């Protein structure tokens, strides 16, 4: 392992009542890369992502952000470096896209500084990046699933952080919209060298759009590394209990899972 990445977990454990969700787990999120966290339901994927963003109360071990334990850092200062978009986020009814995206600026704002020049610029940039230009006065309730998800991503982008965590951003989207969203993530990563980590269910899409895969099983890391190294027939059997054949995707040469 080369230099310490900006965000990592060390020997992290999380317990809910008597149920151990994460068990002394260590992961690195490589800087400037797109990482996917995969695994069967209830393996601790979301808990890991939420812990990495200090949203989850953890037991032993720690999350390290920029060389320091994340829990000991000022939460607002963390929010200027790390943004997380949780599963099924909630906004007040009738909120416009623009107001939603502006709320992403919260860590840069205060009660006396609610709309600076930088805020306006960051909101405009986030709207452009997500292709929502010209729609900013529409209310969130009137959008399609794909548009709404882009609006939420725009809010996270406006937070203007180098680290971006997305919890199941493609759930509830049809395949074309899943592709559209992952293309957007890829583009953001290329253009701004943002480090992205997301929980994904679709292994084939993860293989195609991510540089780094973390496979979880029962609160442990089964394997982590490049898609080619991690997505193997053995891993699919051990993590998902799914017998399959792995072929190379004819278009992109990334691993492709065919269940047998």
């Amino acid at each position, binding site marked *: 392992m080369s230099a310490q990445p900006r965000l990592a977990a060390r020997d992290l454990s999380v317990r809910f009542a008597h149920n151990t969700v994460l068990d002394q787990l260590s992961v690195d999120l490589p800087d400037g890369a797109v990482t996917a966290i995969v695994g069967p339901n209830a393996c601790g994927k979301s808990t890991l992502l939420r812990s990495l963003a*200090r949203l989850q109360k953890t037991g032993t071990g720690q999350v390290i952000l920029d060389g320091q334990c994340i829990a000991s850092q000022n*939460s607002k200062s963390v*929010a200027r470096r790390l943004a997380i978009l949780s599963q099924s986020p909630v906004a007040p009814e009738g*909120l*416009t896209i623009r107001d939603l995206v502006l*709320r992403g600026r919260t860590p840069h*704002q205060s009660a006396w500084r609610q*709309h*600076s020049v930088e805020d306006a610029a960051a909101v405009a940039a986030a709207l452009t990046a997500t292709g929502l230009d010209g729609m900013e006065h529409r*209310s969130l309730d009137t959008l399609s699933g794909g548009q709404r998800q882009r609006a939420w991503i725009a809010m996270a982008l406006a937070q203007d952080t180098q680290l971006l965590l997305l919890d199941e951003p493609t759930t509830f989207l049809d395949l074309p919209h899943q592709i559209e969203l992952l293309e957007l993530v890829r583009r953001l990563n290329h253009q701004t060298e943002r480090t992205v980590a997301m929980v994904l269910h679709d292994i084939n899409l993860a293989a195609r759009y991510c540089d780094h895969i973390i496979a979880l099983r029962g609160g442990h890391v089964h394997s982590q590394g490049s898609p080619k190294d991690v997505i193997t027939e053995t891993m699919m059997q051990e993590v998902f209990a799914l017998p399959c054949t792995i072929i190379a995707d004819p278009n992109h040469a990334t691993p492709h899972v065919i269940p047998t």
Partner: protein
Amino acid sequence: MTYTLRLGTLSLQLARRNLLVGLGLMLLVLTGGLAALHMGSFPVGAADLWTALRGDMEDITRMILLDHRLPRVLVAVGAGAAFGLSGAIFQSMLRNPMASPDVIGFNAGASCGAVLAILLFGSVRFVLPWALAGGLLTAALVLVLAWDRRRGTGLDPYRLILVGIGASLTLGATSDLLMSMTDEQRAADMAQWLTGTLNARNLTDAALIWGGLLLLTPVLLWLQFPLSRLTMNDDIVQGFGLRLAGLRLVITCIGVLLAALAVSVAGPLPFVAFVAGPVARRLLGTGAPVLAAAALVGALVTLGADTAARLVPVVQLPAGVFTAVIGAPVLMWLLVAQFRKGAL
């Protein structure tokens, strides 16, 4: 249309619609106040107020204006504003329109304190501190019971509402019990107080509520910013770097203080806190700062109710009889208008 104000590092955003709504409400409260001074069994021209304040006025008119009507109008506007603010604060923070202090037990606590004071001292003289103490004590109890130690997010909105409704019912029954244990005169005093009344309010009451509001103004100006973020879910709020548990505690204290202040000068006027926030929200654009508008709506409802109560001939009706009569149709009208538009 939105205006952005920037002054050095200070920056603010105001939408024209919200600005107009605010100004309109302010104008309504002002004209309502003047009308209330004018109306009554002894007619006084609104223009006479200025003459009375300057002191060139016959004693009887002066007395009616300055000692009776003016304090009453001031208390109605102040207490109504405090109720409106308190309701809007809890409803936003707990993301639930049911979560107003008259539903979650804080008003019931203040009432119970007041009833106890009347029972112990035989008059309404010591009601004020006891009502304040009753409200704060109830809030403390509800908070302790509803606090979530496990997740570190502090108050759980649903738990607070459930525990609060429980507290409200228990305290209401206790008040009834206390009332049944005493003589007729005291019971009548209690009943009047429990409905919420502005009869015989003086300038001390007005000074108390307005002093409280004035002291809390800087806090309320700050509050709007975190409060508008708290309408989103916990993960988002924490992801923005806001400290959820601490914020919820501070905001609850502010809301309880406002409700307790209002109850101690006006009694537990029903429905004002409950209705002000939703009405204000429907007048304003979505995502707009709702506190100022809620305060003005609360003031309007209370002023209207008290003036209506005053104008009923022969009997001295408590204002609390009219707050729901005025507030409920307004809310229903707004809701139906939204159903029609298909917005709900």
